[in-house]
């Protein structure tokens, strides 16, 4: 269903493929980069995994307190953000494709679109944080839980996790936007083409991973207790 081989018109020079001295072939370099990136993503999985473990333990302990937070979670903003991130993942995948096909203008277009979506996500997240602050739901700084006072203690655990997990996720988004800016500059300088697109693909993997984290955060933080 897909073209698996790029037609190569000439044997690419080491300069074109940015082949570093210690690699024998561009394939070896690309394989190493791919394996390295996936290894890094595994560490990221376990990094977030620590917080997911905390979430699982306390949700098991305090299901009602966790469910009671549903009235404070903005499903519309959360859902919109999920859609925005999914769109950014699509444009990221299209960026990689454009780079592979040496379509520089497409690459720049899709990178910009990805960055726009990423920025929209962060802006919406900022509004949500602002709402939480106004509603006094920030554990340790201003926390009131008068409507469901019986959960005033345990619900703080969920809100703490909410800020820790979404905050860490947002931090990854910011880093991702930085990396995309770097790609954009490079793309503008015509660095990427069919024989050299590893940075686009690697940063793409990172961006998709950040998307996956959100795919789990959305139901776990926004959708609990919506059934009551």
């Amino acid at each position: 269903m897909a073209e698996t081989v790029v037609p190569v018109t000439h044997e690419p020079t080491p300069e074109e493929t940015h082949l570093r001295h210690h690699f024998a072939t561009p394939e070896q370099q690309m394989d190493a980069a791919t394996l390295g990136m996936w290894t890094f993503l595994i560490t990221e999985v376990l990094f977030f995994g620590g917080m997911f473990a905390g979430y699982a333990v306390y949700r098991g302990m305090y299901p009602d307190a966790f469910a009671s937070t549903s009235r404070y979670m903005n499903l519309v903003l959360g859902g919109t953000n999920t859609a925005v991130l999914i769109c950014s993942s699509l444009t990221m995948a299209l960026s990689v494709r454009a780079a592979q096909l040496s379509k520089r203008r497409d690459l720049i277009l899709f990178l910009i679109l990805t960055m726009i979506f990423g920025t929209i996500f962060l802006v919406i997240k900022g509004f949500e944080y602002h709402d939480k602050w106004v509603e006094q739901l920030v554990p340790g700084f201003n926390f009131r839980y008068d409507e469901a006072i019986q959960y005033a203690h345990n619900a703080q655990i969920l809100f703490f996790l909410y800020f820790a997990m979404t905050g860490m996720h947002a931090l990854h988004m910011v880093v991702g936007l930085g990396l995309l800016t770097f790609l954009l500059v490079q793309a503008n300088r015509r660095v990427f083409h069919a024989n050299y697109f590893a940075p686009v693909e690697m940063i793409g993997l990172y961006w998709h991973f950040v998307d996956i984290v959100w795919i789990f955060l959305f139901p776990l933080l926004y959708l609990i207790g919506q059934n009551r």
Partner: protein
Amino acid sequence: MATIAHETPRTATPVNYLNVEHGWKSWLFTTDHKRIAVLYLVSITIMFAVGGFAAVLFRINLLTPEGLFSPEMYNRLFSLHGIIMVFFFLVPSIPATLANFLIPIMVGAKDLAFPRINLLSWYLYVIGALFAMYCVFRGGVDTGWTFYAPYSSTYSNSYVVPAVAGVFVAGFSSILTGLNFIVTVHKMRAPGMTWSRLPLFVWSNYATGLIQVLGTPVLAISLTLIALERVAHVGIFDPNIGGDPILFQHLFWFYSHPAVYIMILPGMGVISEIVSCFSRKRVFGYNFVAFSSMAIAVLSFVVWGHHMFVTGQSVYTSVAFSILSFMVAVPSAIKVFNWTATMYKGSVSFDTPMLYAFGFIGLFTIGGLTGLFLACLALDVPVHGTYFIVAHFHYVMVGGMVMAYMGGLHFWWPKMTGRMYPQVWSQISAAIIFVGFNLTFFPQFILGYLGMPRRYHAYPPEFQMLNVLSTAGSSILAVGYVIPLIYFLWSLKNGPIAGKNPWGAAGLEWQIQSPPTTYNFDDTPVVNEEAYNYGPVEEVVG
């Protein structure tokens, strides 16, 4: 001794990685794995000195039952010692120095897969170390290296956040080192260098890399949560809002137990190389030794709960952790038996690296066997949190890893610097370290079963004699570590030229010049023989 073939000093030293460029920029911006290894060697030596100095100081405090220093001082000293020795010395010790230097050479590559990430990892290490030093100069941290909540998150009046930040950053340095090794071993092997031809040192560091990559991020996040809790005064480990402090221990030991194997596996790899070389014999049961490294790496992740038998952890979970902990002892035992068997019908010489290997095998055996006491549920109850634990893990970490590190340094020093060190002095200091070590830590086993808790700045008077013995031992140990520092520095200028292969060892690293050139090999080597090829197989044991 017998086999050192000194070359006659030449008038002009050939171009090598050390003299190819000069000036501080050529070091701070280098991407040569060998230069980065040297940078690491210098930095971890400094950190080892700081951590060791703290240890000598608090051993002096323990000379009298009342304690010579204030409790605040003592608590900061042992915390400093633990944090520095674990995160800034033991974890990077062999991987970041010897393995960084040797893995590309041993697999026949010009460099690690990601040279710039390798340099980044050193910078991260330095930044982490600077955070730790900042913490010390602000007044130190008094939580112990384990940072248990809620003491660290709420009650401690010391500089927890900088210390945690330092460990966090150094953790990423460790992740990047591990990542680099994994990718290098997978993708950078020379033609013919199959997995079954890899030196065991590479196998053990590959297994270490897996642990670093899979475990360290969990440490990073649990320390981040502690720091957040300290800033917000509330958090998920806070019992006041229904949090469970034991959850922190789960997350902490999910990394920190495997980390114990980050600290010992590379040492095991070094011992395999040394024992083989100075017995002039292939390693007995190569496949089993290689496989046991992988088994240790995997099993190490399912035993963390044996640190929590008396915390109120579920007794059922404890039983599972107990049997799994016994199981992880099996691959370690396999290694010890195989090293011993390697010497059988060998041609053994007592060069300095081999003396360290003897020390390692003996002390690691004791350290490993006393570990069984802690895996054993009922017996862990009285010895948990006492000096028995302290003695046990120092037998493994110092008796094992530091011995291996010293052995490896003495083994590959001629390769790294091109110079030999004085044999007699090095043998004397190896003996001093062995004696000093045992005098320091053996009394602690007795103290532990007597009931002396760890992290006590004062103790009942009847424990004094054993504590004095231990302190006396620690000063001997300190002398033992200073001597090598002196003769290594001396040898840089004055040591005899070592030549390509002073030990007559097998292995790719001994076939290139000492010190190696920047790209290690003139042409990519083609490997067509097993590791440790000291001759064709002549005998098969039953």
